[in-house]
Every structure is written in C-alpha cells, then in structure tokens.
C-alpha cells in the first residue's frame, strides 16, 4: 500500500548548521503530491511545502525540497537552522484522485544555540 518513510525520532543540531530531513515514499500512482507539514506544540500542523512536479525545487520560509520520482524522495532542506525551526516535521503523501493524505511518523527537529 501507499506509505511514507522519513527520518525518525529526534534530530539535534546547532543553530546555523544545515538541515536535512529525509523522506521517501511508496505508491503505485504515478502522480503523487508530496507535502511537508510543520507542527509546533499546541498549534495546528501547518503546510510548509508541497510538490507534484518531478525535479522541481519548491521553497518556502527558507526551507526547500525537490520531488524526485526516480528515487521516490522529497527531502526537506534548509541551509542554516534557526532556533525557531525546532518543531515536529511530517512528510505526507496524497494521490491526485483521492482525498486521503498519508503521513510519515514525524521527525522532531531540535535546534540548539
């Protein structure tokens, strides 16, 4: 079935260092939508990035990701981590002709000063 696998658990890094959170997916559908959601404690999960176009970089708020269908990946990157980036990050998959969104298990990013 359709699934999402992402860097699990806690990722700790120092402010100013680059961020990379891995996400790969599995689906038989050829045109999936991939998303990154950011979830701060006691707030709504918020859409950070989304893409359905192969090999096109998408950017928002300093984060970027490129959907690579050849490797079924949608890794989240940022050149320089900030303290305010500390949150839970979820990679998610949706199929164009369905309303179902499938989430990965989430990655807790903790940025240290």
């Amino acid at each position: 079935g359709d699934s999402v696998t992402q860097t699990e658990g806690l990722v700790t890094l120092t402010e100013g260092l680059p961020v990379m959170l891995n996400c790969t997916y599995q689906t038989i559908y050829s045109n999936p939508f991939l998303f990154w959601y950011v979830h701060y404690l006691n707030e709504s999960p918020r859409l950070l990035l989304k893409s359905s176009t192969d090999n096109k970089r998408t950017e928002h708020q300093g984060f970027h990701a490129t959907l690579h269908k050849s490797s079924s990946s949608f890794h989240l990157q940022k050149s320089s981590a900030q303290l305010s980036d500390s949150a839970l990050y979820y990679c998610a998959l949706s199929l164009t002709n369905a309303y179902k969104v499938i989430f990965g298990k989430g990655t807790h990013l903790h940025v240290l000063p």
Partner: protein
Amino acid sequence: GALVYQYPRRTICKSGTSMRMECQAVGFQATSVAWYRQSPQKTFELIALSTVNSAIKYEQNFTQEKFPISHPNLSFSSMTVLNAYLEDRGLYLCGARRDRGKRNTLYFGAGTRLSVL
C-alpha cells in the same frame, strides 16, 4: 486565510463513556473533512474521510459504530468517540480541504486531546 478550529482543545472522559468533538472551517468551504488520530508515540492515522455529497469512508480498524461523524454543511463537522477506552487516547485532528485553489492541501485544526481515565 483558511482557518480550522477544533473544540474542545482538551478533554478527559471516564472509561466507557463517549465524547464529542467539533471542527469548524472559517473563511472557506470545506468540501471534505478528514479526521485523524495521533496516538502516543505514533503518527497521524486517518480515521475517516467525509466528503460532501458522498458517503463517509472509514479506514480499516475504524468504524462508524465507534466513531460516528456528522458533516451537515460546508463549514462544520463533528465526530464522537463512543465508549472510549485507554487505547482511544491521543490527539484527534481535523483536516479540511477547500473546494478549489489549494487542491489537495489539508488545513488542520489544533486538535482535541483526549485523555481517558
């Protein structure tokens, strides 16, 4: 902008009792509403998807008998957890999708956190 409100934010119920939670879309028409549960140490698990003018579709391991959902109009949905037990505790999220513009994007509420005693 699109906003989704959930009520209550936190609730505690006794084992075997029921608890109703609400989801309100503000500023857009929610043509479909997805209810998710995040159990402790787990990811968001889809319970059911409710789309206007279509039957509510429940995922495996979730039933209408346990999680009845009402979606009476394009701005409101509610779900009840019937006979709640310890395994039902967690964060229940409502995700609403608008009809056009942000296709396939879910806008989430902040969730209802259910504790069961």
